[in-house]
């Protein structure tokens, strides 16, 4: 089958403003959108710029807007999105070139929520065991690959880049609900802020966008509840 792609293009060194280029490529229904981009880059226009690394939905490099929805190009099959595609960079972050955006603001928000395990100050003398039930509590949010699809699908983030965004809250959730972690209150204090959880208005774009099917809005809601009740359920 033939697939028609309209791709966002912007080269800051040569273009005054962004524009769209059109390409038509032969594809199988089971080809991924990333395969089409690779074909265009290899055979039609070598200047096309996009990020990709593992190409198997694990590294989170190739998040982009495909027909208006944030997706990983390496996980979306042509048969699922049709033969007419519009491919654009994710929204809310500055475009550096074509489909590549500056992820620094995203990672700054991520770093701001203490996204790592904080153990007890005393060096443990033996392994810190955790029950399967306690581990299960935050299992969903361990799946985040930091692709940015959720944060850049959020209108609150588009409107105001100061909002930490769903990805940062998901990664805070992963440690807030870890029974062994010692920095729970510090994280909740960071998120109990004007640009913390309160900019989330539960529109569920993030949950729809997540390529790992994390229940992002639910995780944000659980953090809100932990702040409101001063309890971890």
């Amino acid at each position, binding site marked *: 089958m033939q697939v028609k792609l309209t791709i966002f293009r912007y080269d800051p060194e040569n273009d005054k403003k962004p524009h769209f280029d059109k390409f038509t490529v032969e594809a199988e229904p089971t080809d991924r959108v990333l395969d089409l981009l690779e074909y265009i880059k290899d055979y039609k226009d070598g200047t096309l710029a996009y990020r990709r690394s593992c190409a198997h939905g694990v590294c989170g490099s190739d998040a982009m807007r495909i027909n208006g929805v944030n997706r990983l190009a390496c996980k979306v099959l042509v048969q699922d999105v049709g033969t007419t595609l519009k491919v654009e960079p994710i929204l809310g972050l500055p475009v550096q070139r074509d489909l590549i955006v500056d992820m620094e603001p995203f990672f700054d928000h991520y770093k701001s929520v203490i996204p790592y395990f904080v153990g007890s100050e005393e060096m443990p003398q033996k392994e810190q065991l955790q029950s399967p*039930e306690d581990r299960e509590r935050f299992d969903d949010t361990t799946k985040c690959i930091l692709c940015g699809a959720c944060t850049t699908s959020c209108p609150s983030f588009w*409107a105001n880049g100061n909002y930490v965004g769903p990805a940062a809250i998901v990664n805070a959730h992963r440690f807030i609900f870890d029974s062994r972690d010692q920095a729970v209150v510090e994280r909740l204090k960071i998120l109990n*802020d004007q640009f913390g959880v309160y900019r989330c208005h539960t529109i569920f774009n993030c949950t729809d966008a997540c390529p790992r099917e994390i229940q992002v809005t639910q995780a944000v809601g659980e953090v809100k509840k932990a702040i409101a009740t001063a309890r971890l359920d």
Partner: protein
Amino acid sequence: MQTKKIPHPGWNLEYMMWMFTRLSGLAFFFLAIIGMAAALVMGARNQMDLGTLMRWTFFPNPNHVLDSNIPNVDIWANGFWQIMQMLVIFFGGTHGLNGLRVVIEDYTSRPAWQSITRLLFFVLWIFMILAAVYVILAS
């Protein structure tokens, strides 16, 4: 994971208004139920049209049933219903104005603009409450 108590992460305007929004939504629901129940006791079923019933339900002011067929409206013009009206205005008005503040603050990132917006909303809120109390007590 068992329920675990943790120290409260702190009180601030966003936290308080987030809680208020939820509680006032509930309060508004119960106030409306009380208003509607009273209207039915008043005889709304046979002696009021739907519009009048709704006006009394969401703002139980005796003026709202003057043009109905309720035989004696005077007995409903008392302090209890004035307090009910003030509660409706307080919860509903504050809930709504805060919602507007949240929408505007979604789009303002400069601290100076936020301070100006908050001051403006505070003045508007005080004016709205005072005007409502005046209307309620004068009617």
